[in-house]
């Protein structure tokens, strides 16, 4: 159950916690790229915001010697995703070709079963109709659907960029190369803490890093087989 399913690609990401400065640029980039609606202060406070990528903050130690640690968190694109079997509408399902976890907005009726069953709590619900205050409404990305109220959404690994890169490669009759697909968060990260690529290609940068002894999968013990690896802090970099 936990092994990767067969497919042409297995898109994955590596998050190097050693170089992440928690600047939050990835979040801004994701909002801009994927038409993620803003919800306003009041709704944000009661956890109604729907960022596709967020920085989770954890405190270590007692008061005078406090230390904050940050973990960028987005959909882990599990190979055995808990959200998929529970959806009665097939609104969330596994893409056999790209081995990512799809969210099909038109099929979603908003039962929120997937959100309940996601151990990472990365699935977001549209509580109201999307709202883009001036001037954000001027920069909506035409490649990405604006979601209506009452449906789920989550990180897609910028599937529109995957599709475009593949179309361009097909047009030139060349295979996809490592680095052809760059999601918005990866493109924006100033310290290159986020690395994206094909885990099925043993020579890609991301699969080399994913094999590093520093690599770990979040909540791996649940058998979800996530496609996102975290490189833990402090250890020697064996890149």
């Amino acid at each position, binding site marked *: 159950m936990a092994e990767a399913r067969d497919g042409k690609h297995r898109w994955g990401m590596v998050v190097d916690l050693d170089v992440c400065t928690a600047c939050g640029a990835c979040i801004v980039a994701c909002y801009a790229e994927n038409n993620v609606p803003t919800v306003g202060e009041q709704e944000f406070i009661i*956890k109604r915001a729907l960022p596709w990528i967020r920085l*989770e903050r954890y405190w270590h130690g007692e008061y005078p010697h406090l230390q904050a640690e940050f*973990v960028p968190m987005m959909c882990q694109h599990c190979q055995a995703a808990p959200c998929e079997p529970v959806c*009665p509408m097939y609104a969330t399902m596994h893409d056999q070709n790209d081995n990512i976890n799809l969210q099909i907005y038109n099929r979603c009726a908003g039962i929120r079963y997937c959100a309940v069953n996601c151990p990472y709590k990365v699935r977001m619900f*549209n*509580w109201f109709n999307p709202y883009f205050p001036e001037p954000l409404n001027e920069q909506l990305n035409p490649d990405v659907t604006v979601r209506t109220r009452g449906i789920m959404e989550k990180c897609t690994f910028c599937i529109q960029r995957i599709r475009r890169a593949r179309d361009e490669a097909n047009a030139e009759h060349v295979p996809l190369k490592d680095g052809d697909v760059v999601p918005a968060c990866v493109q924006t990260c100033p310290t290159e803490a986020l690395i994206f690529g094909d885990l099925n290609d043993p020579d890609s940068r991301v699969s080399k890093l994913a094999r590093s002894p520093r690599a770990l999968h979040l909540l791996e013990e649940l058998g979800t087989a996530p496609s996102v690896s975290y490189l833990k802090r402090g250890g020697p970099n064996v890149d």
Partner: protein
Amino acid sequence: MSIEMTVSHALPLEDSHEEESRKRHLLLDPRPQEEMNQMVMDSMHRTGVEFWIVMAVLAVLALGGFLGGWLYQIRFGMGVAGIRKPVFWGVYITSFVFWIGISHSGTFVSAILRVFKVEWRRSITRAAELMTSTSLLVAVAFLGIHVGRTWRGYWIVPYPNQRTLWPNFHSPFLWDEMAILSYFIGSSLYLLLPLIPDLAMARDHSEGWRYKLYRILSLGWRGTEAEWRNLTLSMTVFAFAIIPVMFSVHTIVSWDFAMTRVIGWHSSIFAPYFIVGAIYSGVSAVVNILFLVRWNMKLSYFVREEHFEAFGKLMLILSFGWTYFFFADLLTEWYGGEAIGHTVLDIQFYGQMHPFWTIMVVCNIVIPWLTLWNRKVRRTPIALFFVALAVNVGMFMERYTIVTGFLRRSRLPFNWGTYQPSIVEVGIAVGSVATFLLLYGLLSRVIPMIPVWEVREGQLTHVLRRFGRTKVTAVSEWE
């Protein structure tokens, strides 16, 4: 039909003890059939001004709270409810489970007691069965209220469609839908079958629009030997067939939770735990509705203290059963010692859910255990009514704790959260009670609430006999 007496040499009793027994037991207190028919017919016709005032208030609550709140939510979005990350399921799912639980009463009281030939059930089965169908309607409405796009909710039904897409049969939600649909069809038929002779009785005793209605509903019942045979046979089949369906419904409702990876939900004990809880709250709800029916419709000849006493005993036993599962669930979670499992215990014992958890323990364990031992309490309808009301409050709190409480904790503590029902959610939940009572109240004026023929059958087979100095209730079997 012939009655074969199991006791043939006994002589009828003629003393004051007989009077006492007659007063206590409906089946030993026979009255002429015509008188009983008239009592049931009168109870349907007796709609005073007070009744209509209460119905009007309920209609306002149902339209304003239930329907109004729902439409408001559809218009402006799910956000008008209080649910938020990570508590994506709130009062709506709680109410859904609650009403499904209530719906178990009818089948339990009617089918199981019928299969085991429990004689006191005869006069009260109808009230319980009607409750099943009515509360199932309210429960299904809550599925519609719960989904973010209500207008797309019908996609869950498997039908050939232009999307060429079947629903996902892996999803417990779909099992749920299948089980509830089967249960609704089965329990509605099971309500209608024993109703046919009573509808025919009502047809023969009414005129005007009622006559026309009953003529259609009674399906031309004449009461011939063949008709009775077919009815008895099909009722036996249904009584046996509906019991596994009833068990499957709440098993699958519990699997909605148990199949997930949510801490506290993912437990193999959930299926029997939920079934016992459902029957517990269902039987309590039958006590509530029986009290209201008896009081409002003046049916104290048919619904007597003996019925309340029997229900009191049932509630006490079910309370033991529920407590056993409740304790086993808590103990395994606590003894396992996993830090993550203890977070959901902490939230119940010390945290945000503590008030609700305390209400649950008091209402489901303390109150029934302290009161139901007492024969006097069991035999006082108003006292038992309040105990049953407390149990229903407690059972709602149990579902509220399980659904909204456990969701507040998850494996990554950054995502821990809280939940506060909004005014819309409270309005819809309160409105659902009004909707149920409104539906039930209106139906109670159309549907004969007492199965007269079943009571009469029981009265014919029961007789008080004397053996030397002891008096024994002799029961014979229908051939």
